[in-house]
């Protein structure tokens, strides 16, 4: 088994009287991507802040690249890169100046300039390099921000909801970079609310809920925890009462149509349900029978407001 790049043991973090993290154990092998999934307030950002030495654990042991984040904070900082939820850049400096600044503050000295040039080339930032951050779109800022977290050649990269607020194209571009970094051996710890993102990028996922680990495993293992099939149908909203099941989720599509879904134990039950829809004269305009998505996993395991 490869060495662990991230080890979190029995981590508790208190903010006043609230436990933001309440006994979390997590491990990420070197060179893999760990996805930390959860709703707002689940503790994802606090976990990243502890791992990046910004918040001290109240209780527990946390190692990054084999180093304790409290006892060896300075050495940990040399090995990590961080991209937070908000781009940590100076608006009045150009993209290149920001990257060079971070390089020098990382301790690269004169090598900072060359290193910034490398990052600009690698992330395809040449067009953005001479422009001030204040003039850039949100997506472009995020790309430069990711660049800033790579200037120090980190062995472990922390991305806290890196694609929140990005359009699909910018998101896909960022995913490609993460995959490339991962392939080159960088360990990535990524928090996200987008299940598609964790599914696509993560080798392992932990689902956080109210400061605790609600589930863990590979994307496929997590889908198996929920098991069965999900039947989803788009129907007129006045047909909801005639449904042969009580829907797990109901989403309004437009004025008079809703999307309903239900999780069932197996394909046979799913098939019977579909037959019954016709039998009840429900006007189905779109029907899917599928394996559960990570959305279903989280909805199943980590319901907001319900303690695990």
């Amino acid at each position: 088994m490869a060495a662990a790049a991230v080890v979190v043991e029995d981590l508790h973090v208190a903010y006043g009287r609230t436990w933001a993290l309440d006994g979390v154990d997590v491990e990420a092998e070197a060179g893999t991507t760990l996805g930390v999934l959860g709703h707002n307030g689940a503790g994802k950002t606090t976990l990243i802040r502890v791992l990046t030495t910004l918040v001290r654990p109240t209780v527990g042991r946390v190692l990054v690249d084999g180093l304790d984040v409290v006892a060896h904070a300075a050495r940990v900082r040399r090995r990590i890169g961080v991209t937070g939820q908000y781009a940590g850049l100076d608006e009045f400096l150009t993209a290149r100046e920001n990257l060079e600044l971070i390089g020098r503050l990382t301790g690269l000295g004169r090598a900072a300039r060359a290193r910034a040039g490398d990052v600009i080339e690698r992330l395809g930032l040449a067009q953005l390099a001479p422009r001030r951050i204040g003039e850039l779109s949100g997506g472009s800022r995020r790309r430069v921000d990711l660049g800033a977290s790579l200037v120090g050649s980190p062995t472990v990269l922390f991305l806290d909801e890196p694609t929140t607020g990005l359009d699909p194209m910018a998101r896909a571009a960022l995913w490609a970079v993460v995959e490339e970094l991962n392939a080159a051996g960088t360990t990535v710890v990524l928090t996200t609310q987008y299940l598609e993102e964790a599914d696509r990028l993560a080798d392992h996922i932990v689902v956080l809920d109210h400061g605790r680990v609600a589930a863990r495993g590979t994307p496929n293992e997590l889908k198996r925890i929920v098991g069965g099939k999900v039947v989803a149908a788009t129907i007129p909203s006045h047909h909801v009462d005639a449904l042969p099941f009580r829907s797990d989720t109901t989403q309004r599509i437009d004025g008079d149509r809703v999307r309903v879904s239900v999780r069932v134990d197996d394909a046979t039950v799913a098939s019977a349900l579909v037959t019954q829809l016709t039998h009840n004269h429900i006007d189905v305009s779109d029907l899917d029978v599928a394996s559960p998505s990570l959305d279903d996993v989280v909805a199943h395991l980590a319901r907001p407001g319900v303690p695990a």
Partner: protein
Amino acid sequence: MNTTIPAPDHSPAGDQLVALVTRNLRTSARVPQLLMFSLTMPMAMLVLFSQVFRSVAEGPGFPAGVSYIDFLTPAMLAVSTVMAGTNAGVAAAIDHTNGLHDRFAALPMRPGLPGLARTINEAVFTLARAVFLGVAAVALGFRFHGGVVDAVAGIVVLVTLAASMSALFGLIGDRLRRPDVVQFAGMMVMMPFMFVSSAFAPLDTMPGWMQAAAALNPVAHAADALRGHVLGTASLADTTSAVLAAAALWVAVTVAPRLQARRSA
């Protein structure tokens, strides 16, 4: 691409500080409006105050044989340094809102460096403001009565005051984290520093409690010392007490919070 340049074990703090100071100077230069207003506002205030409060020179307790412009100009230097100090607070708060504070905190860098860089910037701008203010003052009839030693001592007093104000407002910026709130809080903090002092009128004309409070006010000490150097009457004790008062404030707002953080960690 595999250009991995390993970071050296010890970060060159000197180069980091130069990088931060350069960044601050660049940022200031790129907001020319702010730069212009912060450099010229003390000039405008000097012109207005020298006319509005001119009668103070005829009142009781005003030193004999001293013109009001000679009395006011050194105090205006001290006061404008306090006002400009709020810039350091706003700059610190902006680094919180744009995420740079966290980014810096996760870098292998001494935590005090960004604050030190802001202090150096404040010192540079304080000296630039002094030049602008001096030009306006001379146009209004100001004369420097001291010698070279007075000029040097005056600069030392001014720079120490700028450092302590930058540290104080930097702490306020770090605690409040919102530029707009820091701006208002800065005004609240600034007022007593400015007015509980002999900056605009002799202390003898003020109530007893104000005179007692002024003894604790580093701005009052700085205004007195600067005035003494301008008039050529300052003693070593005046300079020392101004520098010590500013240094005490600096220690209180930089060292004390760090000790507190270490104790609670």
